[in-house]
């Protein structure tokens, strides 16, 4: 037995050495910090997007698939799963790195939980672009491209005031506030932008948040889920608006806006001024029907186009165009950012705003 043992160990060790000898070891050249001088025109570009919870992400995915193909790249566009979002996205990004993607565009599900994957991508020599949502706590993020979200909030706040004034010339106005998912970096930015406009009016007493829920923690809707917004609105109506009139609701996006309107309608109340964002089809219909008051046109087409332009620049070995190199600090560094301006849309300017959108334009002709 002893000798058998010794022999087998020896055989094991030898075979391992043999494999070591002919295996060749590590690929030393896959190190990262070689200066980027562009890459092949048909390289793989990875796009990792959140779960398909809103039309915009679905549209963005389609636009990326087609746009990258037209530009001559190979593309791998992935969505996170519905419930296991973060882990899915982590795995997808890792898979893209493995497949040798040269640029990875990430619409983060949780902006703070991707630093390991971004670091791995960076180490493998890929460039990482944060799309729409800023990825935090990582020095390895290269670019950020988004609409100016503070501006979005300001537009929403202003539209809310304008809309209420149009319906009822004099205040005080009763309003309620909603904000997006707390794990989305943008949600707070929207909210702060809106409060930038609303706060002075609230302080003057011209606008009243009747439920007194003005803290972002109270107004947040986890995961941007419509049912969350509907449930919160139901509760607000029961607790606060038994006799009071509700004049306006600040909603951060269209999905939540429609949920809020559903809640109000089922409570038998008059639909107040409700803001939105994203120009979703159902919301445009709602605006044209006079229910939802406004939405924000952050044309996904433009955003995707700009992102693809960045990829093209990187491919050619040039520095992509950016227009903000000081505002967006992700906790580890200030990220080079390209910001696009958003547009507020009401029934009045809808036809003009969507004139170039094949899906939305017909809806505005009524």
């Amino acid at each position: 037995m002893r000798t058998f043992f010794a022999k087998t160990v020896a055989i094991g060790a030898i075979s391992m050495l043999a494999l070591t000898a002919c295996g060749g070891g590590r690929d030393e050249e896959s190190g990262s910090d070689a200066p980027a001088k562009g890459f092949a025109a048909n390289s793989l570009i990875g796009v990792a997007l959140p779960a398909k919870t809103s039309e915009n992400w679905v549209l963005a995915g389609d636009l990326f698939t087609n746009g990258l193909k037209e530009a001559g790249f190979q593309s791998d566009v992935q969505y996170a799963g519905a419930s296991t979002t973060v882990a899915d996205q982590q795995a997808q990004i890792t898979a893209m790195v493995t497949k040798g993607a040269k640029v990875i565009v990430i619409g983060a599900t949780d902006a703070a939980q991707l630093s390991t994957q971004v670091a791995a991508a960076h180490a493998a020599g890929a460039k990482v672009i944060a799309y729409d949502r800023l990825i935090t706590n990582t020095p390895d993020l290269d670019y950020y491209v988004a609409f100016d979200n503070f501006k979005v909030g300001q537009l929403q706040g202003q539209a809310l005031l304008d809309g209420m004034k149009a319906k009822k010339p004099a205040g005080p106005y009763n309003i309620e506030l909603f904000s997006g998912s707390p794990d989305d970096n943008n949600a707070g930015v929207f909210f702060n932008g809106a409060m930038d406009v609303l706060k002075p009016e609230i302080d003057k007493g011209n606008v009243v948040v009747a439920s007194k829920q003005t803290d972002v923690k109270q107004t947040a809707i986890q995961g941007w889920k419509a049912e969350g917004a509907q449930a919160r609105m139901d509760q607000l109506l029961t607790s606060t608006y038994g006799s009071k009139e509700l004049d306006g609701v600040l909603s951060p996006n269209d999905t939540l806006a429609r949920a809020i309107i559903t809640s109000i309608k089922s409570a038998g109340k008059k639909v107040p001024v409700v803001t939105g964002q994203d120009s979703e089809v159902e919301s445009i219909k709602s605006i044209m029907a006079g229910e939802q008051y406004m939405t924000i046109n952050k044309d996904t087409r433009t955003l995707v186009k700009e992102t693809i332009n960045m990829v093209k620049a990187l491919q050619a070995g040039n520095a992509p165009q950016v227009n903000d190199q000081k505002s967006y600090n992700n906790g580890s560094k200030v990220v080079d950012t390209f910001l696009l301006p958003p547009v507020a849309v009401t029934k009045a300017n809808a036809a003009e705003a969507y004139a170039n959108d094949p899906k939305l334009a017909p809806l505005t002709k009524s």
Partner: protein
Amino acid sequence: MSRFKDLQKNLFGGTTSNARQFGMIFTLVAIVLLFQFLTDGLTLRSDNLIALFQQNSYILILAIGMLMVIVAGHIDLSVGSVAAFAGILVAKSMAEWDLPWPVAILFGLLIGAAIGAWQGFWVAYIGVPAFIVTLAGMLLFRGGNQFIGNANTIPVPEGFRVIGSGFLPEVGPNTGYNNLTLLLGLAACVAVIWRELQSRRTRHEMDADAGPLWVSILRLAVMVGVIAFAALRFASGRVGTSFPVSGIILVALVLLYSFYTRNTAGGRHIYAVGGNSRAAELSGVKLRRVNFFVMMNMSVLAALAGMIFVARSAASGPQDGNGWELDAIAAVFIGGAAVSGGIGTISGSIVGGLVMAVLNNGLQLQGVGTDRVQIIKGLVLLLAVALDVYNKSQGRFSIIGSLMRPFRREASAAPATSEAEREPATTTVSG
């Protein structure tokens, strides 16, 4: 009988429960090779293997605890929430109370133990079904996570991240490989050989047939080959990478718990309780203690899994742990455990978990979307268990049974083993 039969009987340990495992290992190898082919060799590339282990170590750790819970005849739906709850507390403890990270890990395990004691108390001492207790726990600790974290994401310090995304250091001469990984591989080879010898000696002492020597050697060759291949792969990743730390934690736990469940009285008691709790009780097994232990142990492992995920994600977030319970439970059932308890092995569950992991990874490398990945995983779970159920109902023993069927014909002519059972028990009557 034929050599094939020898192989079937002896290649993976010889006892009947291993037959199912053989089928699963077979499936795993087939899936790996399939994707290796479909992805042009990406599947078995170093960086992908490393990522595969990092991505799945926390689910596999959960599967270890879940196996024991399921064998004892319970279920734990709360693991994801417990993981998230422990994760957020540990992240907070480091961010706000400035606990050093090793202390924070200990703190996290203690939280797991406390939650486990709470759930174990209801299950074992009050007698509330585990399904209900852990369904309540799922809500309770998910809410706790949101309450404490205010649904925010809390980053964790660099040192802590080692348990989730860390690697072994580079030491020794430049061999073109990560030397510590190579050493681990060598140690594993030695251990495998030692165990094989040990088991041959044991069979010998039992006066039992240890199986032909060539089967032992073949088995050793296969296992050493696989280990050597894996070690070289893991050692030849990018400089600074190695077999991941989370993988090492996983392997250590698998070895520890396999030993516990197979070779100690405590482990035997878990199977006894799951197989027939009344019979176990009448054999002197302390039912409550066993039930309390498995529930508590599960929560400790869930807390560990939560910490590893947080470490890997570099932050604790409100979505942590969503749906993990289902992945862990699926791994256990694909790995051959019985819904009614009493049957299942740690290694089977790990293989079951790896089947799911490789499937997931391979499909992602192919660019298949999560929607279709989920559909495929659902079907695989259903088919794996259905095939097993079907085979049992046909009186054949599980997957391997059906694989071997074409080879049976020659054997059925001769009376098989169950002959003895039918032999009338009258031979001593005349005395």
